[in-house]
């Protein structure tokens, strides 16, 4: 999981610099994955 998250984060960061339009959409989708994962897990802390 940590390796997958690191790879998808880096991919998200690089995708947006390749171009606009579809590149940006792909980048947002990729970067949403780690954001989702950390929200889902850390929510237990605050409950």
């Amino acid at each position, binding site marked *: 999981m*940590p390796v997958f*998250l690191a*790879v998808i984060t880096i991919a998200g960061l690089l995708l947006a610099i390749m171009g606009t339009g579809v590149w940006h959409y792909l980048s947002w989708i990729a970067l949403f994955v*780690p954001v989702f994962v*950390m929200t889902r897990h*850390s929510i237990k802390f605050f*409950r």
Partner: protein
Amino acid sequence: MKASAIRTWFNVHKWTSLVCTLFLLMLCVTGLPLIFYEEIDHMLGKEVEATAIQGESRYSKDQVLEAAMRHIPGKEAKYLFWDQKDHPGQMFVTLADSSEAPIEADHYLTMDERTAKVLDAPANEMDFMLIMYYLHVEMLAGIPGKLFLGFMGFLFLIAIVSGVALYGPIMKRFDFGMIRTEKSARLKWLDLHNVLGIVTLAWAFVVGITGVINTLADPALDAWRAGQLAEMVASYKEKPPLEGKLSSLDAALDKARQAAPGMDVSFVAYPGTLYSSKHHYAVYMIGTTPLTSRIIKPALIDAKTGEFTDMRDLPWYLNTIFISQPFHFGDYGGLPMKIIWAIFDIATIIVLISGLYLWFARRKAKAEQLARLLKNSESLTLSAVTENENQI
């Protein structure tokens, strides 16, 4: 991993984090509004739109610049800047008392290229965003402040690496992302620290390393001026300083475009500024695609005769700085990316605070453990210690 190796990594993680945490907290907090500088400017009504006149400008760039200089008389031009993508038809002008004046004394004007009118000329004073900016970049302490923050960033990178090294052994027998809420508060915080730390890892490392690279911009610029730039203008070494009227700006731009076909003008540095020689317009050309727009090539145009002098690729260290910048700012992927940047930033703040909490909690737990040990130990030992102390 051996126990001794884990202990070493733990100490590396503890000390590098402890030293840099407060500064990193400051960087994360001041960085947060900076992510949204465009949106905040827009909200405050500071952003201006060029008039919607279509077609080519009736005014030359020289005329637009003259209009800017008339607006604040007695100043010299330092830099001109264009942003065709987001602000077409606008020319950003930086004026100051002299080309070598410090950046704090610069005046910024936004000019409408089609009407040669001043669109915006904010007063030269510190506002909230500028204070955030200078705190973030140099803690209001100039180049030493900047380099100091660079060193703190370097420690942060070591803290990240050592944190990852510890993550493996700690999580070996546990599921990813567990938060143990039913046990001690310390375990709960440790789990939060671990899950947020490991998820933000790649982002924090990229933003950290590009931040450190950015702090080296001043020495890199000095190295370029002393090296490549000096070589390019070697024949000007003995020439007297520039006096009187400069050659045409429009002609200089044309010369630069001829030298770099297919590239756009990004900005112009005037003679005597940090980004040029004492005798030249430095016209910085960039590529037109998202990827090649990070590759910058300065053309040097004699600011007296208007002749083309030289154009070379920037050295690798300056290219590295320019390419690293968007990855630090997070401004290259629209508003959704900025929001993602902010979420990661806040997560990093929580990692820093939880790390600090863990250090305090551990110290407290250790002190309590020591107190228990002392209490339980034979009173004999204690009295022996007291006797020893009395003898001393």
